[in-house]
């Protein structure tokens, strides 16, 4: 523990100003002032701390004990912070991952009701895709339950294609433009985060945008990987506060994790753009 000179032990002047201080009798420092000064100077062994509500029981606490207690408190604080961060991450992953995947499966099955009559073969393929998606969701949920991180090695291009495919029943002109070489070159963590961002963005379009056309694109632009999710729907307020249901704060948090840049632009009745830029190399 750092010890400093006991300057506060010097008696203090009652009046202000050098002349007054010289003339007036010096006040003896209060107990608290002396204790603080002695603590800094290493002149005391222990503090006397009331150990019970009635001031009838006192406990001596040496500095080692106080430091140990402080360390314990800091450790608890760190553990609590880690738990809060982990909870936040789980919420984000469940919201942007599993829930969006299940939502997309629901959209596919809804489309199947029409396809069963009009194009049974297409319907069968869609059901098979939905089944595959549900298996992935089960895999993700098992990872959450076991405490392992969700699988990180994903085929981002294929996953984005799947999102686009599942969405076409609600947004007829949904395009997916993915540079496969860019997707393949991404670090696994970046690919997972971009996929979750895309899922969240597309989910917003399907649920809220009432769009006629939309696009997901992934490309390299000026040495940056750019993910864009664009639609021509009713738009949204990009400055809407947290908790308004659009999950934009989840997107922002993921972009922050990637040390990237997020641009949200939207005009009422003229659509919206979510553009994420991250560093291009692994």
């Amino acid at each position: 523990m750092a010890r400093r000179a006991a300057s506060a032990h010097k008696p203090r002047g009652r009046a202000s100003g050098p002349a007054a201080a010289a003339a007036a009798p010096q006040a003896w420092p209060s107990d608290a002032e002396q204790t603080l000064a002695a603590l800094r100077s290493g002149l005391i062994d222990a503090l006397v701390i009331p150990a019970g509500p009635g001031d009838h029981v006192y406990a001596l606490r040496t500095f080692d004990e106080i430091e140990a207690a402080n360390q314990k408190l800091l450790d608890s604080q760190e553990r609590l912070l880690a738990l809060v961060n982990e909870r936040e991450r789980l919420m984000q992953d469940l919201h942007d991952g599993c829930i969006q995947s299940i939502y997309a499966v629901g959209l596919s099955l809804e489309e199947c009701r029409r396809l069963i009559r009009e194009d049974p073969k297409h319907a069968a393929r869609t059901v098979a895709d939905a089944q595959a998606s549900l298996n992935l969701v089960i895999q993700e949920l098992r990872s959450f339950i076991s405490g392992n991180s969700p699988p990180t090695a994903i085929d981002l291009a294929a996953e984005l294609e799947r999102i686009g495919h599942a969405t076409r029943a609600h947004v007829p002109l949904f395009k997916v433009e993915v540079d496969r070489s860019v997707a393949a070159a991404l670090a696994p963590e970046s690919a997972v985060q971009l996929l979750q961002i895309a899922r969240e963005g597309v989910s917003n379009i399907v649920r809220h945008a009432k769009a006629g056309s939309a696009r997901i694109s992934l490309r390299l632009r000026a040495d940056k990987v750019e993910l864009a999710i664009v639609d021509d729907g009713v738009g949204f307020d990009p400055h809407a506060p947290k908790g308004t249901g659009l999950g934009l704060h989840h997107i922002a948090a993921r972009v922050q994790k990637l040390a990237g840049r997020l641009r949200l632009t939207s005009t009422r009745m003229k659509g919206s753009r979510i553009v994420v830029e991250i560093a291009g190399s692994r």
Partner: protein
Amino acid sequence: MIKPPARKAPPRKTAKGAKYELCLYVAGNTAKSSAALANLKRIAADHLAGEYSIKVIDLLKNPALARGDQILAIPTLVRRLPSPIRKIIGDLSDTERVLVGLDVKPHA
């Protein structure tokens, strides 16, 4: 009219006749507590001319005694007499400060 300087009343002696009644709060034989007791004995012998009594209270044995003099830290010397009560917190290694605290020397 210029008032004559107030004459200081002669210090009252304790029941045992000591001019300085001192009480040192310690916590067992820790380094600072032991140093405080040794410093106090030395300072008293050198500067209090035999007119003192020293009582040592070990708060490890009876922490509740801290309540009476509202002790915050260990070691603490309490000058019960002459009044007013004065506390000097620390290991009493700064002799000048202890003498000022006991009013043996005037404040600098």
